[in-house]
């Protein structure tokens, strides 16, 4: 046959389970123990409250800029909760909700936000990676990590997060390709929140969906309602199973929305109108999950009130502790820490000079 359709795997599905009113297609709701369901909800609420508090701290100059998660809590908690503790979490910079699920201490985040490198400290045995600021560059690390783990005889998988804008970067392409060629168990979670700062999804790429980009690599892709914690979780579980059983990557597109500014330095009114935002507020991931939990009797108004109070206290305590810590961190010296495993003689010389109030350069007489 001289002209025929090429044969290749091109099926990509879309999944949604929990609708905007909190009604679920119960057949598809995954089996999750009640306490985990509530923990998921609490994590989402905590992430949102944390942002609200941080916004105030930022506006009053106590911390610097940060990227709010508001609106994307389901996409994060739904997916990360499919991961084991021994698996790897490879975030970008907006994954506060996922961080909280993984146990990242709010104190560390606040210290980082306040401009101290010490806030980025990671325990050697933690399986969380630091924030990655250069967009799209961290997915390759996830690939390297699991590939290394396999060579070391360990079965670990990695889940890596990035935005719609990040899919335009060459590194996204290289990471997907490496993961597929090397059969790496990586779950690529794209939080398509419709914007890369001011650039809307429609101007970022012309493919009808982001999920279909998986086809370019012979990888399984799936699109989910990213404000639907169940759809996110089911897709993530399937991806985790595929990773563990077949050692194959998956690309999950979570269709969601950033309800707040890109970062505190951004004014979204310059590029989108309130109407659009209002439409998406209707689809709030926390509200709909809350309704479902209420209907199931897993939370009630009083319980939520108590939860909110606990969270407020927890965040307040974290900030107090951070403030106290900051008082101890005024020296110029730590700037030189951890550049290398051991300070080189030249760095030691520069540090000494700066500690004496001089510039790091300068000479020594002959």
């Amino acid at each position, binding site marked *: 046959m001289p002209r025929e359709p090429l044969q290749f795997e091109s099926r990509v599905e879309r999944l949604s389970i929990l609708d905007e009113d909190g009604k679920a297609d119960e057949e598809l709701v995954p089996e999750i123990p009640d306490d985990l369901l509530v923990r998921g909800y609490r994590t989402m609420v905590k992430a949102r409250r944390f942002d609200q508090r941080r916004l105030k701290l930022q506006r009053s100059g106590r911390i*610097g*800029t940060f990227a709010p998660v508001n609106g994307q809590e389901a996409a994060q908690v739904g997916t990360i909760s499919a991961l084991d503790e021994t698996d790897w979490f490879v975030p970008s*910079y907006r994954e506060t909700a996922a961080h909280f699920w993984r146990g990242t201490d709010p104190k560390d985040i606040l210290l*980082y936000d*306040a*401009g*101290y*490198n010490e*806030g*980025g400290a990671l325990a050697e045995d933690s399986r969380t990676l630091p*924030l990655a*600021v*250069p*967009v*799209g*560059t961290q997915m390759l690390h996830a690939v390297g990590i699991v590939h290394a783990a396999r060579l070391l005889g360990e079965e670990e998988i990695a889940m890596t997060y990035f935005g719609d*804008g*990040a899919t*335009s*970067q*060459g*590194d996204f392409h290289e990471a997907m390709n490496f993961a597929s060629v090397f059969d790496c168990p990586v779950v690529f979670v794209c939080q398509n929140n419709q914007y*890369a*700062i*001011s*650039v809307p999804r429609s*101007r*970022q*790429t012309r493919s009808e969906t982001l999920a279909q980009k998986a086809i370019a690599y012979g990888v399984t892709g799936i699109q989910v309602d990213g404000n639907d914690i169940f759809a996110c979780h089911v897709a993530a579980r399937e991806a985790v199973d595929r990773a563990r059983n077949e050692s194959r990557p998956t690309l999950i597109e979570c269709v969601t929305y950033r309800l707040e500014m890109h970062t505190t*330095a*951004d004014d979204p009114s*310059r*590029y989108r109108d309130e109407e659009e935002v209002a439409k998406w507020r209707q689809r709030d991931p926390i509200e709909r999950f809350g309704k479902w939990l209420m209907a199931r009797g897993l939370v009630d108004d009083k319980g939520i009130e108590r939860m909110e109070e606990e969270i407020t206290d927890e965040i307040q305590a974290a900030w107090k502790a951070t403030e106290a810590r*900051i008082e101890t*961190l005024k020296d*110029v010296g*730590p*700037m*030189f820490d951890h*550049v290398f495993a051991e300070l080189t003689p*030249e*760095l030691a010389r*520069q*540090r000494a000079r*700066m500690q004496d*109030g*001089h*510039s*790091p*350069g*300068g*000479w020594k007489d002959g």
Partner: protein
Amino acid sequence: MAELTMVEAINLALAEEMRRDERVVILGEDVGVDGGIFRVTKDLIEEFGEERVIDTPLAESGIMGVSVGMAMRGLRPVPEMQFSGFSYLGFHQIESHLSRMRWRTQGGRQVPVVVRMPYGAGVRALEHHSESREVFYTHMPGIKLVVPSGPRAARTLLVAAIRDPDPVVFFEPKALYRAFREEVSDEEDEPITIGKAMIRRDGTDLTLVAYGAMLPRAMEAAKTLADGGIEAEVIDLLTLSPLDHEAIAASVRRTGRCVVVHEAPLSYGPGAEIAARVMEGAFLKLQAPVMRVTGPDVNVPYFAREQLYLPDAERIADACRATMNY
């Protein structure tokens, strides 16, 4: 004319050049509808349309590579790298193509691209947003690199860069974006040309070399020193590549002493070249080794410590006094 901030002055230069020359186009992340995250390209899309003020996908190599192509087809693209710390994703397009296309084609293709990028610390930003790695571009044959030190210089240097037939990397000291205003007059009044340094303060005792966001700090140090009876001549480099080493050496031949200031790390930093050139051009007059007042050999720490990292007037004055006492 009005008193403008550097952001406004750059915006003005862009608008004027776009009006003057239809071939000038802007492209980058958030440069259009948003007007740039620092508002440098504010309102330009309204005046010039989205054909000439182009919001691109999020891909630095793409932006640089497309700019190279556009320039070869006769445009004068002014791409923006949102921060110099992200220009490395497009580094190979700059090194392997932009810097060499004229040379590779023996003049058959021209690539008059001006790559604008904010650099430097001091605005309480995140990691990668405070870099000062001008050497990556000054050590690249075929690239010119300029750094304005105030609104007026920004305006005239940018005009010169856009009219230059060759690629120019335009480093914008973001700490100065809104730090002060200056009367911005017609470009004719400002004789800044690419490749020429300017003496910003006359002095006889010592030559103080700075550029970009360090220039105001050097000027401040000079004032302090004057109170102590030391008259520093302050040179504003404006162009780092090609370096106006003769202007520096000429000054040092008069003063006999030299201190160089930059926020880039010390080792293999721009100050090394300046020191080497001063030694070459003023050896017999040199009363003391050239002192470099720079960032240390570490990444810019997160913002709580960035001012500790940055050279300040005090450290500059300290270095000048040490040089005087050598």
